[in-house]
């Protein structure tokens, strides 16, 4: 998931954003990986992640093929339970758990190490914080990929609050225009930050959009709620 690499924001804005994901590599360790992927997410649930997901399917918020129009007045901010996500895993695709504290992520890493599933586990987040947590969990990191940010035609990028929201789907499925619309709806009091975060999250097909960070950004001064 390069998808998780280039999120936009200051170091302070990533204190509640740690994505732990596990995946196999074709021809090396993908055989019998499905039970391991399920076990990874079941273990994650014990540490209260803000959401969990499977790649290509999404997180607990997903679009509906047959939405009842009546739902406009009582639409839930969660479409699936975490247990339903785990139950539906039948294919070998990356799974992810998103945490909003380094402490929860570290406790999870301790269990991941002990479980020894043999699949590749990565953490996308602040590299210094992740390194420290991994060390305390008895894990020596193997490789790091650093994000060096954006360059080139920067004048084509949207404004900062929009960029902070929309880059939470690195595949660009969360459009800047939609993020801007959500900021406006929250500012005008027409939607709650929780509802706006759910709308945005439904567009992230990998389900690694962090609703906790999104709600914070939507509520922030200069963000949605002024």
């Amino acid at each position: 998931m390069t998808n998780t690499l280039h999120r936009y924001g200051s170091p302070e804005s990533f204190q509640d954003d740690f994505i732990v994901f596990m995946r196999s590599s074709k021809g090396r360790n993908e055989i019998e990986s499905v039970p391991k992927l399920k076990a990874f997410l079941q273990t994650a649930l014990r540490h209260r992640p803000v959401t969990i997901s499977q790649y290509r399917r999404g997180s607990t918020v997903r679009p509906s093929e047959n939405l009842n129009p009546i739902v406009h007045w009582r639409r839930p901010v969660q479409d699936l339970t975490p247990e339903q996500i785990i139950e539906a895993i039948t294919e070998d695709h990356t799974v992810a758990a998103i945490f909003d504290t380094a402490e929860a992520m570290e406790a999870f890493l301790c269990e991941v190490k002990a479980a020894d599933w043999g699949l590749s586990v990565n953490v996308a987040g602040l590299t210094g914080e992740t390194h420290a947590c991994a060390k305390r969990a008895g894990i020596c990191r193997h490789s790091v990929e650093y994000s060096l940010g954006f360059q080139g035609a920067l004048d084509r990028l949207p404004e900062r609050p929009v960029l902070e929201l929309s880059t939470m789907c690195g595949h660009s499925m969360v459009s800047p225009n939609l993020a801007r619309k959500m900021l406006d709806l929250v500012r005008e009091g027409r939607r709650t930050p929780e509802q706006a975060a759910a709308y945005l999250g439904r567009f992230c097909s990998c389900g690694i959009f962090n609703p906790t960070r999104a709600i914070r950004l939507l509520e922030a001064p200069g963000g949605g709620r002024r």
Partner: protein
Amino acid sequence: MRIDPRKCVACGNCLAVCPVSAISIDPAIRRATVDRDECVECYACENRMSKEHLNPTLVRAVRGFLKLLRIRFDPEPDVCPTSAFAPEELQWPRSLRRAFSDPCIPHESTGVYGRGTEEVKTNDVTNRVGSGEVGFTVEFGRPAVGTRFREVQAMTMALARIGAVFEKNNPVTALMADPASGAINPEVLEEKVLSAIVEVRTPQAMLPLVLRTVKEVSATLDTVVSVGVAVRCDGEGENSVEAVLAAEGVRAFRGKTNLGLGRLTNLETARA
């Protein structure tokens, strides 16, 4: 992607949803239309909007009545009420747009979903970036700007000139007519995609040169370039790249950490 004018009710929801702003309301027909040259076939509209399958005539009548009363309906912003998207069968080279833009389909060249590459995520079992090497992911078009392959080619040719080695298992490399020069198949140069990732590997000593080259070429492009630098850590989990990046004036505080917990298990599973 096309929008069926018989079904579209011009509610405008899909305008905000399109990552590259390729959808607009055509005032002549009062329906949403897709600019085919700008559309990158990412399917964000078709795959990620919820659908209600309402009768278009009924929706238009209700909207028309509300308009008369100067009342504006406030719909759910992620819904296409009449399921008006009509995906088309894509022919080469347009089919490349979807391969490079829709993360839910695999790249034919690598069999990998998303942007088609495993990068450092499985480096603990692939050793793609070895000790003493640096892996670069140079991504074009993201976030939400898009790119054409002629812009990607400007970079690949510059990187080839300084001796960078392109990752073989990468969808952009698979499009190269001549990997030694970085030249991309001329047939696809004008195709627009949401993002494309070029991957190269060099010795660590070349890190400053590659960074400067990428910066120079990026300044000439009409798209956004995001750069990732991957490195293998030593036995203590440390690496010397952070110091080099700092010396180059680059602030790198966020990234992806491979924890080294993967191993080759296919054989042991098969034996068991």
